[in-house]
């Protein structure tokens, strides 16, 4: 699987990090994790799950039938967990770097400048 992960892929893996979930629950969790910005449709979700399963990042956990509807639960595989951890670390470093730069910029803007410069 190519890294950096695309945002939907990253959020699907994040959703599955807590516990195994079925498709509908993953859609809801991804929407919640992205503050409603990302709304996965089932066709897109199952395509992504197929790719993640092919890459060995996601595994089938169990099957259930609820109200006559088949539900398959998916879980994060060990290699899925390590890819998610590596990607999260990469993003964390980026966030830290950006936060430090923005703080420095804000501090610079607040420092009063001497009128007339060096003259």
């Amino acid at each position, binding site marked *: 699987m190519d890294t950096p992960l695309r945002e939907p892929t990253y959020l699907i893996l994040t959703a599955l990090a807590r516990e195994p979930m079925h498709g*509908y629950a993953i*859609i809801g969790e991804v929407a919640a994790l992205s503050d409603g910005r990302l709304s996965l449709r*089932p*066709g897109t979700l*199952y*395509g992504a*799950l197929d790719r993640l399963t092919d890459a060995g990042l996601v595994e089938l956990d169990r099957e259930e039938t609820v109200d006559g509807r*088949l539900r398959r639960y998916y879980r994060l595989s060990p290699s899925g967990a390590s890819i998610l951890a590596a990607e999260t670390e990469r993003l964390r470093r980026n966030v830290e770097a950006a936060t430090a730069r923005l703080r420095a910029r804000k501090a610079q803007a607040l420092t009063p400048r001497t009128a007339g410069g060096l003259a």
Partner: protein
Amino acid sequence: MNELERRYRRLLRAYPPDYRRERGDEIIGTYLDVAGPDRRWPSLAEAADLGRGGLRQRLRAAGATDLIPGVRLAGLLALTTAAFLAGFWVFAEQQLPPAEAGVPVFGPFVSVGIVAWCGWLIAALVVAVAPGRPARVAIGVALLMTAAVPAVSVLAGVPRPPLLVLAPMVALGVLALAVDDGLPVLARVLPVTAATVGGFLSYAMGVGAYWGAYRGGGGEFQPPIGTVLLLVVLLLAIGLGMRRDARGGWAAMALLTPVGLLNVHLLAGAVDGLASGAPRPTYPTMVGVALAVALLGPALLPAAVALRRRLGTPSAAAPCPTCGRHR
């Protein structure tokens, strides 16, 4: 089974039968969960989602999963080429014929084609600053404007660029619609850079008589552009192929139609035979060759997918990726 479920199942036919058997109930169940109890019809977006999902699965079953990323790559190259040509033609449009020639013009421009070329320049800008839906809309508008030029020319009685200039732009535009939403910044600025280079080149050539070459069908200018595009995509195909990435190969195949249309002058010259060391094809031959390229080119991709499926389907014998069952 209620009416909504029946309608979802009808749309699910976009998927291959094997996949439908394995995953159909699960996908439909999720759609019904998402839809809620009062819905009777699938939305257009859901129909498109199922259509896309079905196409992806069919390509996967044929061992052609790289096709869609390949077409997206071709989309970027097509848009870059279209922007380059538009930048070039915008300046060529300002090279008016001498008044004594009595050739009709479109205000201060050679033809109504200026509107379409400006549409492509705007599309290149939108791709750079607002990728995704706005970019696709801008490309769609530029494409429609280009395709509408012949009809506008007839209805309004204004001059237009030659069909052999418009046809490759339409083919490039159709492919450009496939451009990826999540392009990195460097890739997003490629079309607008190409448009600037095209404009500078046209300005540098600064030929007062260039309107003649333009009206002559771009016979001298378009073939080199088509050849450069072909070389670039072939180099990409070789480079990516060395990393076992088939995107470049699919991109090359997708670009054969616009490359062929840009090279109609040369191809038709080869059909008619060479005279005086340069291709001198007749107009009927050029039209015939353009039609052949426009009809055969788009058939190449599905033919290649079918051939790949026939030669060997690596995924056919593999277990279902999700449930692990053998089909």
